[in-house]
């Protein structure tokens, strides 16, 4: 049912876009107003989420250590898995954010005759990495629509991405990787029983939405081609705050754009905010230097304790009889 709801939601999004553009021709709505609104929701929403997290105190330093601590000088410590200083923490975060270090540890357990057998399970890591990296590169490539002239870096990125020059226009490698990895992540959710069991509409919906974005983009580039100069004209209009709808951009573009707008608006209220959250995770972004440097809890408050005096008052006679020193004779 969770899958059905998500699927229906994505279909609805597509129908709205097609009806709005091909049906009633509401170009300004779908080409200017909704994209602007979505972008604002995205920016404000994500900023709000991050500010709320960042403003929440971190009362305790609770890193999860995945390697040897720094202790005696002759014991080799692990500066990245159990960092004891800021450079180490930065290194750990770089590995985590850019290369998904923790996910790389993934294994799969199978029970054979009552014995757990641990096998490798790197596919999730690989697909996750392929998906996130190709998504990032695709977004960066799209920046060519927003700059005139296009910065050299972006052109270079696009050139590298299309290195193999398959087909006309060239197939971007990241487009293929993106579609394959999203499909994998989606099918994985369906195929693995325990994963299917935990999946919510909020898990299927973004995957299907992103898949629809990828497919519509792919179709636009390779099948229902649109005039990219006109698309760029529109994009530059947004950037210069003088948006105008150029004549004759095909419906597929508006479909693609509306799907992206929905994703942007949905982003801040969904699990997709993990993009910002990962940087703030206290089990990863704190150094394992707990006994070296005191961590201050901003809301540490006094508590009721049982003092030594109260203790001795209760047990003084027994202590004296047993020859244990006491404060008051």
């Amino acid at each position, binding site marked *: 049912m969770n899958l059905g709801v998500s699927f229906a939601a994505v279909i609805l999004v597509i129908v709205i876009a097609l009806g709005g553009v091909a049906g009633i021709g509401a170009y300004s709505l779908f080409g200017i107003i909704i994209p602007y609104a979505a972008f604002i929701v995205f920016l404000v929403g994500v900023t709000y989420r991050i500010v709320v997290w960042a403003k*929440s105190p971190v009362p305790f*330093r609770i890193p999860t250590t995945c390697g040897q601590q720094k202790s005696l000088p002759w014991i080799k410590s692990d500066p990245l898995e159990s960092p004891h200083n800021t450079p180490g923490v930065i290194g750990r975060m770089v590995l985590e954010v850019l290369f998904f270090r923790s996910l790389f540890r993934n294994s799969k357990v199978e029970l054979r005759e009552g014995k757990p057998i641990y096998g490798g399970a790197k596919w999730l890591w690989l697909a*996750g990495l392929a998906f996130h990296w190709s998504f990032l590169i695709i977004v960066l490539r799209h920046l060519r629509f927003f700059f005139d002239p296009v910065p050299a870096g972006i052109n270079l990125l696009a050139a590298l991405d299309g290195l193999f020059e398959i087909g006309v226009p060239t197939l971007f490698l990241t487009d293929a990787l993106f579609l394959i990895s999203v499909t994998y992540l989606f099918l994985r959710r369906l195929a693995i029983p*325990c994963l299917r069991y935990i999946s919510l509409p909020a898990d299927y919906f973004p995957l299907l939405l992103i898949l629809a974005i990828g497919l519509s983009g792919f179709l636009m580039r390779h099948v229902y081609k649109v005039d990219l100069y006109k698309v760029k004209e529109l994009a530059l209009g947004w950037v210069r705050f003088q948006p105008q709808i150029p004549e004759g951009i095909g419906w597929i573009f508006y479909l693609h754009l509306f799907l992206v707008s929905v994703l942007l608006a949905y982003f801040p209220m969904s699990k997709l905010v993990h993009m910002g959250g990962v940087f703030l995770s206290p089990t990863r972004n704190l150094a394992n230097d707990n006994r070296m440097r005191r961590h201050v809890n901003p809301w540490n408050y006094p508590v009721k304790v049982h003092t030594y005096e109260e203790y001795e008052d209760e047990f003084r006679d027994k202590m004296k009889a047993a020859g*244990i020193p006491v404060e008051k004779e």
Partner: protein
Amino acid sequence: MSLAKLPKPEELSKVSLQPPAKGWMENPAEFKPGTWCYSAAPKNLKTLGLSNPREWKPSDADWKLPENWREIILQGMKERLERFRSFRLFMDICVRCGACADKCHFYIGSGDPKNMPVLRAELLRSVYRRYFTRSGRLLGKMAGARDLTVDVLKEWFYYFYQCTECRRCSIFCPYGIDQAEITMMGRELLNLVGCNINWVLEPAANCFRTGNHLGIQPHGMKDMLDFIAQDVEDRVGVHIEVPLNRKGAEILFVTPSADFFADPGTYTCMGYLMLFKEIGLDYTFSTYASEGGNFGLFTSHEMIKRLNAKIYAEAKRLGVKWILGGECGHMWRVLHQYMDTLNGPADFLEEPVSPITGTKFENAKSTRMVHITEFTADLIWNNKLKLAPRRNDHLRVTFHDSCNPSRAMGLLEEPRYVIRKACNHFYEMPEETIREKTFCCGGGAGLGTDENLEMRLRGGLPRAMAVKHVKEKHGVNRLACICAIDRATLPPLMEYWVPGVEVTGVHELVGNALVMKGEKKRETDLRGEPQPAKEESKNV
């Protein structure tokens, strides 16, 4: 529940990881005997001043909750979301990728899908969405949100007391979401309405009043330590006086009370006493701070602080320079990650320096408390101990990393170095089951009680099977650990799954191997079992 009443290991290990057909929100928790812990006795709640003391049982239909229990819980959630970034973040960012799912020992051993860390967290997250997020309020179940009902509360109780806060899932999570943190919050909330277990609160109440979990009064503690010293004298021939509450000692030694209360912890304690005697350490035990463990960690952050306070207070009263801590797992999570923050700064102490080797323990210069394996490893490295590892040649040893020293401290090499120097036969378990990936004993976080035995044995299955592997491969007959809960829960686990393997503390091995000045001819090990004669030994 005794081992005899349980199904045979062949039966218990038949676990299916296939989830049921019905969705998890439609499946309320079922309190099957052997899988939950008794509720806390009212007297213990009263000692600690906790809410809603009453007689009740988790299997009862009516839990005698306060009338406004829902408001209490929701208010409690609100406060904790505002106080802990960890809590808010971990409620928000999970993508349910499932990487944590099969990393939990309780899931592997029970197949219950709500023991997948992700789903255990969703039990709380679904309520968070319903009351603290807009999408949850508007979309309800479609957004993965659900109302807080008595059944939901019961489910929390069942599953948050079916998590040992071992943090194994956290190392696999791409965002470092730590189920231990979520379980701690869940238990704090349950405590607000008086839903807690006796195996946690009785030790906590005892610790509050008598200074230790077992409720040992000062004269009793003296008797026990003297008794252990007498055992050392009988087996080793060296007389030891155990200092108690001695002002002006250089070092305060704090260890879990289980170390002087019951086997096999007492053998570890013999090891400590022998070591301190041999190096002439100027130290003292304390009867007031006679517990290293801290069952506050399994109750609430406030309770951690209340119980932990006595350690610094006693160090100050006795005027020691620094503190040395014995072998214990969750004790060291508190000492390493919480003590200085909660009850510091320890400016009345000095930065720890080994009086024997002169080594400065730079890594403990703020908290001023050193782990015994750090201390002993330093002694051995500097050749201050005479060890005869052949005295452990009757033992083929493997090492169980305790959850907290490995995943909250990174204390991995120190105990291994000590073991290697004290024993000739040491074998590691498979890589996926040791160091930061170590598996829990199944009875940590206050779950090590007998009525919960079936669940403990299930949770301990991955650990036990790893031991079985090295037993079959290398003939391992001794499982070493640095945790008092391990020393209490691993013996029945071994008896059930891997008969023939006994459990030992690392300092028992040190005690066996330690050549002491003035010792008699050692015919037995510290357990009184025959020690191999010189000619029988061979190095591997």
